[in-house]
């Protein structure tokens, strides 16, 4: 069977950033590191385990964005994806619906048996692209999946999705299907040296977004800002020792220590 894994690129969460003059664009510092979305590592690992069990014949990784997005695809190749596809767009804000339309258009041509995605993007926090691809391709899906098994000669996938800490919800989905995995479904591997070397020279296939049936933005950002801090917050300042003394005093005053 053939698997597609949807990969997103995110900026390191701790990198400094500024808001541009337009008041609605966040610009990370030039030295900020970009990498694969952590949730997508779990999706890649799930695909690789299917390959190792002889179930998956081919694994393609796909990402939507500018040339800079290849950093995430390179990581997918290092982990063990066979091919990587960049759906190249200009430097525009991409909503989940825009990404889903492009990936669905690309996937419709290839006819994948299984499309895997991470549950959400750490950066965008939408958790939407997976289910949207399913709706566009008119195939079933499940999100927050913590266990998946293929059965019936790979005609169906049996999934457990997370409802809360103590409850899961179980489905059998006919393939093709989209499965968006929750973090913790597996332990994503570190790329082996041989795979890193192989990935370094491998070509990433590029499809221009303008050649696919995309969608216009479904929403517009009108402002970004720092959320208001909660009331009653006190930052304890000073040298490290002074901060320790400050916290000690703070806890003491409240009879907590």
């Amino acid at each position, binding site marked *: 069977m053939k698997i597609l894994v949807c990969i997103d690129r995110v900026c390191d969460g701790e990198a400094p950033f500024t808001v541009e003059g337009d008041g609605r664009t966040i610009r990370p510092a030039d030295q900020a590191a970009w990498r694969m979305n952590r949730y997508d590592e779990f999706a890649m690992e799930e695909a690789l385990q299917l390959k190792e069990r002889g179930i998956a014949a081919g694994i393609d990784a796909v990402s939507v964005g500018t040339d800079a997005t290849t950093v995430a695809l390179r990581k997918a190749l290092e982990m063990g994806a066979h091919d990587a596809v960049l759906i190249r767009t200009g430097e525009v804000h991409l909503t989940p619906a825009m990404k889903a339309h492009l990936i669905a258009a690309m996937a419709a041509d290839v006819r994948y048996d299984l499309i895997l995605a991470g549950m959400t993007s750490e950066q965008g926090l939408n*958790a939407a692209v997976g289910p949207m691809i399913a709706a566009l391709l008119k195939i079933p899906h499940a999100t927050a999946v913590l266990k998946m098994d293929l059965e019936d000669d790979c005609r169906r996938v049996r999934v457990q999705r997370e409802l809360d800490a103590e409850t899961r919800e179980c489905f059998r989905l006919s393939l093709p299907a989209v499965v968006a995995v929750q973090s913790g479904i597996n332990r994503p591997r570190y790329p082996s040296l041989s795979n890193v070397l192989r990935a370094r020279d491998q070509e990433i296939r590029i499809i221009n977004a303008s050649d696919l049936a995309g969608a216009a933005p479904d929403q517009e950002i009108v402002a970004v800002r720092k959320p208001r801090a909660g009331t009653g917050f006190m930052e304890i300042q000073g040298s490290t020792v002074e901060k320790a003394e400050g916290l000690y005093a703070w*806890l003491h005053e409240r009879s907590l220590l």
Partner: protein
Amino acid sequence: MILAIAEPSVPASDAATMEAVSCAVQISAIRSSTVILASAGKDFEEFRNAEGVRLPCDVVLIEGQSLAHYNAEGYAAAITGLIDHLNPTEIVIAGTSRGGDLAPYLAMRISAAYISVVTGVRGEGGSPVYTRPCWHGKMEMDVVSRRERTVVSVQPGAFSAAPLVGDERFHVERFPVSVALTATEPEGTLAVSQGDDTGLANAEVIVSAGRGIGNRENLSLLMELASLFPRSALGASRPVCDYGWLPYGRQVGQTGRRVSPRLYIACGISGSMQHLAGMRSSAHIVAVNNDRDAPIFRHAHAGVVEDCATFIRVFLDLVKERENGKATQSEEI
């Protein structure tokens, strides 16, 4: 009109449903419109008999086969039928596990805009402007829809679970649909054990570990910190459990345990929405994190911007020094 969707397979008075209704009521005020709450797969009597359920809107019960258990395929088809009938401008769904599974799928099926994890809404020129988190939860953004129809998912806890203008005498109507599942077979729910009792439920003080503690070895520092307090327990953020540093039984958050101890010390935890949902109601929250912009500081009462391990070492030394000092003093007396 604005359509709110009830959380599937839970009692009629469920908080997530009421929060979605609250958001829908706010949108209806902006649009000078009305709200209808749609509930799929629930039986009529449950809503009628649910004591104390007050609603600021009427209810439509979507009835049909394939809706007994939540499943995206059946629910989306059934709700799409109702949407064609009622022609709502906004469809509001709680951002729970099931709501988050359904909402983006439904949005694409009906070619609507999808605005997720909404934490607030205000009007501008008679149209809603939504606030939602972005950039790793460190920033928030205002967005407007660019489609005639919009599906909105609501961040749990962001809107009131008690719509004040409610009335017990709401009208309930039935909307029968015929939905056949073609690709989904629901198999019901499954209880999973998270292992040993970790003492989190009864702890007065919880010291919680996040990715920012750096490595597994530094957990011993947190244990030492916890041991300063009687009735304390060690908690964790989801990534720490994903790494296998601590078992999932220690995970605090929306998908873990919900706790509200007297004191919660978040060490190297950035404060994802997921985590905050599980500990926000703690009486005192202390956060230690080297990132001044970490969302956890917005919900903490006291905060220290420092590398976690370094700070805890210094703090432990200080406490030892003070305790020794006390011991010496009492000897002198």
